[in-house]
């Protein structure tokens, strides 16, 4: 993950303390998305039956 900082300033902080929030927020959107992709791939199988 890239640390972000204003131009010209040094790395004024780290994203390490944000890691749990990053993981949680990606899970929040990733799990429903994974469910949708799983159902989609399940349907693709119909074409090859």
């Amino acid at each position, binding site marked *: 993950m890239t640390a972000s*900082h204003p131009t010209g300033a040094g790395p004024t*902080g780290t994203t390490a303390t944000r890691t749990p929030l990053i993981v949680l927020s*990606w899970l*929040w959107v990733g799990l429903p998305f994974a469910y949708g992709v799983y159902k989609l791939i399940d*349907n*693709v199988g119909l074409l090859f039956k």
Partner: protein
Amino acid sequence: MGFLDRSRIIAPPDWSRWLVPPAALSVHLAIGQVYAWTVIKPAVEVGLHLTGTQSALPFQLGIVMLGLSAAVIGTRVERNGPRWAMFTSLCCFCGGLLLAALGAMTQQFWLIVLGYGGLGGIGLGIGYISPVSTLIKWFPDRPGMATGIAIMGFGGGALIASPWSTAMLTGFGMISTAGKVAVAPPNAIALTFLIHGVAYAVFMTLGVLLVRVPAPGWTPAGWIPPADSARRALISAHQVSARNAIRTPQFWCLWIVLCFNVTAGIGILEKSKPMITEFFRTTPTPVVAAAAPGFVALLSLANMLGRIVWSSVSDAIGRKNIYRLYLGGGAAMYLLLATFTNQSRGLFVVCTMVILSFYGGGFATVPAYLKDLFGTYQVGAIHGRLLTAWSIAGVLGPLIVNAIADARTAAHLEGPALFTLSLYIMIGLLAIGFVANELIRPVASKFHEPPSEATP
């Protein structure tokens, strides 16, 4: 505006930009539900005793309102910031679903049209452009990838909502026989809308709470804006307002590019089921009706992957080159389809998948193309105005394919002959789009904002 104000969401120095894509996705995955209307539509038709044309109204109005609200409210969205926009989108989209629930419960179809299509459509427009322009500002080094993530989410919304809505409708009492809805109690439809409205409100709240805008002058650590080169000549360091952008030939060339690229893709998407069955009906290995949903799912997968993959590739090879591929490559795929028709099922599936991946890629790459040409100042508002091309294409693509297929059916033609003329028309449209893309040059300096004006 307090909590919703742009000044309240300026990111602290230790904020990670990787928190912004989930914020954007929480909105796009929700509003992408609109593409799952095809699942709710038959239930509404049976439950409220409507014709197919009537039951299509909420979706059609929703797409029209998406384009209109993005175009009209785009500048305000830029000014007020993404938290305000996401919250407004949440209120409109989820409020629309709740209104639709009331309409289904009281069997007042006009309430469903007004709620889902009217109010919900405004939520779609605001929710579509705001996360995209925010991501562009956070990822100046990879704008194609960033917009690809969000716009892939919009496609992904239907993947989540389709099976979920079907499960809910069935659980609340909808009965289907031989793949067709036989019984759909209005209360089942109302409960489905109600749960959608509440669940999506909770889901989108993450975006409202999490979204941040970068502090003025922020750039990614270690990133140095690339120096001008031949390939990057189109990437402007200047800013252009939405008002000025629509006065440039570049905007209208891009409008044509988007319109015809979408028309070409949507033509296939609209008729994918009958197309594959008709193409191979007279061959020794026909595609049975039960397999057609598998083909549709495969196209959805290509559409979704095209959004993230091609858009990310555009960061490496440039926006103009990737549209050369979408338009030129798309025309080549259509030519293969028209030439080899039903000689190979594999070739048919591969060509249509590539076309759909270019269709998705075209949607996802266009905000980054706008950013290259007009800067980040009002890119969301400019994107909103450009989406009118989508509204036109949404009518044009199905109109061409359906009108030709109907006329040829009336002339007792069958098989690939129903579609070949449409395929050649799509090649022509893609060729026009290709020329329009070639005509795009850097924006003239007279349209640039003075540096002091161009601070978002």
